[in-house]
């Protein structure tokens, strides 16, 4: 018993070293993996957020073809910064729908006027209810939705130019 106790600290410490070493040599993973990946979208039915785009309901996102759902707001600066990337994705033939968070129709219209309008439909989530149900904690965020209305990928933060090929890949594999 005493013999065992004497060597116990060393054994514990070796476990410790193994743990440290594994932590040290693990590639640094800064990506937050969403728990909603693989889950169906929550049901929602939102009013139109812009004058010249139809409103958005969750059933419309299960239309057989993978698409993007962009969460944005007219008052959000990074959302303006990601507009060219969204435009590039639309030009590549990707259907994009959007939800405007805590916004007003006039502001959304002005925002789209300034930054271009890559969206097919825009729903207005005036009190962030759908955003919270989606597990999104800020703007902008972008979801890849597969043809059956399930979340395939959640992109937190703005889409940078070098993210575009990755997003296209995700869309392809969601087919």
């Amino acid at each position: 018993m005493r013999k065992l106790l004497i060597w116990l600290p060393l054994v514990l410490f070796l476990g410790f070293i193994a743990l440290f070493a594994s932590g040290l040599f693990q590639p640094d993973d800064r990506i937050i993996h969403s728990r909603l990946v693989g889950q169906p979208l929550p049901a929602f039915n939102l009013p139109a957020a812009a004058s010249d785009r139809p409103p958005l309901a969750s059933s419309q996102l299960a239309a057989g073809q993978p698409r993007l759902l962009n969460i944005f707001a007219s008052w959000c600066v990074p959302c303006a910064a990601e507009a060219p990337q969204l435009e590039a994705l639309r030009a590549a033939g990707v259907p994009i729908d959007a939800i405007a968070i805590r916004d007003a129709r006039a502001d959304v219209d002005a925002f789209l006027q300034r930054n271009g309008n890559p969206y097919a439909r825009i729903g207005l989530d005036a009190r962030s209810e759908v955003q919270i149900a989606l597990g999104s904690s800020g703007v902008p965020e972008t979801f890849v939705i597969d043809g059956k209305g399930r979340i395939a990928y959640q992109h937190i933060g703005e889409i940078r130019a070098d993210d575009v090929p990755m997003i296209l890949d995700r869309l392809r594999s969601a087919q």
Partner: protein
Amino acid sequence: MIAETGLAALWLAASLALLQLVLALVGLKGDKPDLLAAVRPAAVAQGVLTAIAFALLITLFMRSDMSVLLVATNSHSAKPWLYKFAGTWGNHEGSMLLWVTVMGVAGAAVALFERALRRDTHMATLGGQAAISLGFYAFLLFSSNPFARISPAPADGQGLNPLLQDPGLAFHPPTLYLGYVGLSVAFSFAIGALLTRQVDAAFARAMRPWVLGAWILLTLGITAGSYWAYYELGWGGWWFWDPVENASLMPWLAATALLHSVTVLATRDALRAWTVMLAVVAFSMSMVGTFLVRSGILTSVHAFAVDPERGSFILGLLALYIGGALALFGWRIGAVREGAPFELVSRETLLVVNNLLLTVILGLVLIGTLYPLMTEAFGHKVSVGAPYFDRIAGPIALALMIAMAVGPLVRWRRDQAKAVSKRLLAPLCIALLLFGLVSVLAWGRIGILPFLGLVVAGSVGVASLAPLWKRNLRRTPLFTYGMVIAHLGCAVSLGGMASDSAFTVEKLVAARPGDTIETAGWQIRLLQIQPLAGDNWTALQADMDVSRNGAPVTIHPQSRFFASPPTTTSEAALLTRWDGQLYVVLGEEVEGGRWQLRIWWKPFVTLIWLGGIMIALGGALALLGRERRGWLMKWRARAAA
């Protein structure tokens, strides 16, 4: 030239450490006294050389020599001199140089001043100290050279992290490092004693002042760090269970346990193996803490070197030293005889309880700190926050406080349960009284832990004075006063913590100049907000008149902007009164010319740090008392001869 001289001094010190190790090993093995005679001078010379290297690095920072990479990346010519000076250790390389300097100087001190230890154990200890130093020299010279040049030299430096531009930086890290590295002496003592199989009361008496000294500095360093975080981060909290805070708390917990067990060993020749184990654990915790901070393996506000190469280097050192020490422990401790026995009702038992509780807290803090790492190994990401630590460490700490109050009232070796309970009667009555009082005043309005904290703090505070009861106060030894003050400090600190979490009033408002805010009996009038320029920052400063039904005092919370690197820090305005602190933070401007203000009234929060200072002061008195007794005895012996 200065940088090259510094590097040369460092290489020379490293070679001396190697020499010191070889001399001690060969001398002890072959019993060659002439070789052993050179060990002490080598240790002293090594200490002097590290001090020279460190002084030269300070010179480079003071002169803003931008041709030195470290200065260029961490300093700026426009910085006030204090931050140029303190900036020397506000970065990875400089702080590691501080580490080896403290280690070298501590080794020199052991060589010069240690007289109580048996000669062979003393030599083995110095050999151990040299072996540890060597690893850190290698780390500095091969992967973190502080004296590396940069060519071409940039026009100016990149500046120091603004959070660090605070007078606290001049004081907090060196104190903490002195404590961390001071524990390396205890570690080397343990190695020396294991090698020469001398684990007895004489060994404990020799080791005690070093442990006590390191522990005092660690206590001061943690207290200062806590206060620094409290006023500099502007969050109103005084402990955040950040991995680096835990990294400083864990060696402190181990050192506190060691301090008590070494006293048992010195006084009663019991707890031999346990004391040696704790001496190994205490410094191991210092090294583990350094590893956690320097490797960037855990995210923390203190992590300035996120670099896997350096991480692997320190990990290798950890494996070598701690693994080696634990293996030596397993191999040799069987040969150490069992210490003296003691009865169940005795001070020894209480000290064992104290040690166990401290070790349990240490283990729980360690698990909480490493848990994110463990789950990540299995693919889950979690973070462990304050609720875990508060809930788990809080109750055990309260039990520990009670053991602390009872311990000094129990006699060594054997005592009568009846007599002990008689001595505990008065504190127990006070505990009941306080329980009633706090119940009446605050029942249902405060959490259970703060509630118990208040009751325990009050009664333990009284109980910690009990060892002075019915004693001739003029003939009470200084170290007894030290113990009483340190224990009282624990109670005072606990009282502050409990009062802060029970009674703090927080208010978040948006106010226009001219508005008056009422909270917790204070009237706070926002006069104006205006820009202000400092040495290397600009700020928005609010002028506020605050009063508590009396003459107003003007306070100035600031929001500071630093240009290099671009950062905003908040300088909270603190108004200290005898019964607490008013803590005001200026936030951002919101619409309509209104400003966010965050206001706290924190009753008796200052007791937390006052208690910390009392604990350190108690330690200092105990150290002085023990040492003075040694001097007196020596002086009397000499006078008699």
